[in-house]
């Protein structure tokens, strides 16, 4: 949900899209229209038959305008009927107490009639440590404790006391409770942290890799996840995993460039224009992960800062899958097979893309691409998706 009105010289005149961009670049009157445009696009996608619609949480930036995804999700819960509401998600360490999430997610599950997917990200370093002041050294520990508290709160049959390291509550007893039992599917967006793979496998959480840099960067991460599954003797059910991909569908590969190049370049050149100093506060990435040399998403963003990036680069490197329906289908099947992911999240709006182009992209995808993907892993049972 990017702010689409950053100035042309944003890169040259500002150091970062995140944490400390001047608020004067945001215009709340235009912002009114922007929010409703994005909501219209999500409701439109739901009406086209997409399985779900996703919202996420970011702070103090022009790249994602949803400090509270739950506000948006509550609108979607009411304005859609069948599409699942995927909140990707609430950065647990930022909620005090974390039972606030147990409450709001339960509200969303009840409002939507049991259509919620509960996403629990750690949150980017910018959001958590620089915008919200969380200590990097304890962020993940606090996050884990918060997730544990939320899941326990959803299942407990009576009020209980919680004496945690980061949260102390004498009476935990959230009302309402979710429709889905024992709780909604839990999705964990990860950036390639070794510890997160094990945690997801051990707890049967879905692991999602949210990549802006194509599936080749995702390959190393998903391979690590599946190797962890093997080591722990767990099946390679593709529905254990999710992956995010920019997609632009057009009549032809050439038309895709006409329709989408400007907006993709806006995204990569302005929305990801990140001050590298904010990308990796000491302690955010574990030593184990650093040793393995897996570069987090935001570090990758900070490192690309390539002023000469072209549409051809973006497509060739797989950052965006774009072209005719057959090009897109071939490419996406190659991706989901290579990564073994059963849940594909497609970003059909990116950068400065407006309502018409976004809805056109969604319609083409729903008509010409989605039917060829939907049953691709039909032999497996999807236990990470709302049943209702």
């Amino acid at each position, binding site marked *: 949900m990017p702010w689409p009105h950053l100035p042309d010289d944003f890169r040259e005149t500002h150091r970062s899209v995140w944490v400390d961009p001047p608020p004067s670049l945001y215009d709340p009157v235009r912002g009114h229209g922007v929010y409703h445009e994005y909501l219209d696009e999500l409701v439109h996608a739901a009406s086209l038959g997409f399985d779900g619609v996703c919202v996420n949480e970011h702070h103090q930036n022009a790249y994602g305008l949803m400090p509270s995804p739950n506000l948006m999700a509550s609108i979607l819960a009411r304005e859609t009927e069948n599409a699942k509401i995927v909140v990707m998600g609430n950065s647990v360490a930022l909620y005090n107490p974390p039972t606030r999430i147990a409450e709001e997610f339960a509200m969303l599950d009840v409002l939507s009639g049991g259509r919620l997917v509960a996403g629990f990200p750690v949150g980017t370093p910018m959001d958590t440590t620089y915008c919200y002041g969380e200590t990097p050294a304890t962020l993940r520990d606090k996050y884990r404790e918060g997730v544990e508290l939320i899941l326990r709160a959803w299942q407990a049959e009576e009020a209980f006391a919680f004496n945690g390291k980061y949260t102390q509550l004498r009476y935990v007893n959230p009302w309402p409770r979710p429709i889905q039992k024992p709780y909604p599917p839990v999705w964990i967006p990860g950036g390639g942290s070794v510890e997160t793979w094990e945690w997801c496998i051990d707890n049967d959480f879905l692991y999602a890799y949210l990549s802006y840099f194509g599936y080749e960067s995702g390959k190393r991460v998903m391979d690590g996840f599946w190797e962890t599954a093997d080591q722990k003797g767990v099946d390679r059910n593709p529905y254990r995993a999710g992956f995010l991909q920019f997609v632009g569908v057009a009549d032809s590969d050439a038309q895709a460039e006409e329709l989408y190049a400007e907006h993709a370049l806006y995204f990569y050149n302005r929305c990801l224009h990140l001050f590298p100093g904010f990308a990796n*506060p000491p302690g955010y990435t574990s030593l184990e992960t650093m040793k393995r040399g897996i570069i987090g998403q935001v570090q990758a963003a900070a490192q690309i800062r390539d002023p000469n990036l072209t549409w051809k680069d973006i497509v060739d490197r797989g950052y965006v899958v774009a072209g005719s329906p057959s090009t897109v289908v071939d490419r996406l099947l190659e991706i989901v097979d290579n990564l073994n992911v059963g849940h594909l999240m497609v970003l059909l709006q990116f950068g400065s893309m407006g309502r018409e182009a976004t809805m056109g992209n969604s319609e083409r995808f729903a008509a010409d691409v989605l039917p060829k993907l939907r049953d691709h892993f039909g032999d497996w049972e999807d236990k990470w998706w709302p049943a209702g």
Partner: protein
Amino acid sequence: MAGRVIRVGSGPPLVWLHNAGGVTELDPVVLALADQGYEVIAPVCPGFDSLDEIDDIRDVHDLALWYDDLFTDLGLDGASVVAHSFGGMIAAELAAHVPHRVGRLVLAAPVGLWRDDEPMADMFPAFPLEIQDLLWADPSKAVLPPPPARTDIEGVDDPLLAMFLQMTTGMTAVGKFMWPIPDKGLRRRLHRVTAPTLIAWGAKDKLIPASYADDFVAAIPNARAELLDDAGHMVVLERLDDFISLVAGFLKE
């Protein structure tokens, strides 16, 4: 009680509490203090060798008491303590929490206070690439002490990566007690310090403005400040000889 303690020289004990860069036997400040006829005792701050050490050192109070326990183990009471930057915050907290531990106190550009009108710079986004610009009055004259030796980074062959990992470990530990603003209530406690105290500051400190020296002098009952010209936050290295003379003179008063 775990923890590695570096000892250099012989004579009356003098405790050195290191900055966010860590400490080794080859640290120029440690060697210069030892040359003054002291046994320099330099504990490695918990977390710098392994982050597991600070799992249950959750805040500055726990940290101050960890040092109190360490001083007990080392038989130190009424000790002379010299400390720099982050180490200065620890020394000030120890002297405020358990005043009798510290006999004489030298704080060089200590962390631990905050002023809205002159906020200290944020060193964390500057780490690692731009940190030297913040630390030195003239970064082109930066003299880096040897990085703390780590031998337990398994599976890391690349010496640069190993160095980065050990520096990151130290910075992570420092961040645990400084994030996001290193004001954890020290100003409310400094009145408890009984040790005669010398505050030393580089006049050109870009990380913590030298005006913070006045705040420490105002808050500590028996304190005075010395500003050193042509020095930044790394005043202890940028003006090594003069700093050591100041310390030696002060400890003999």
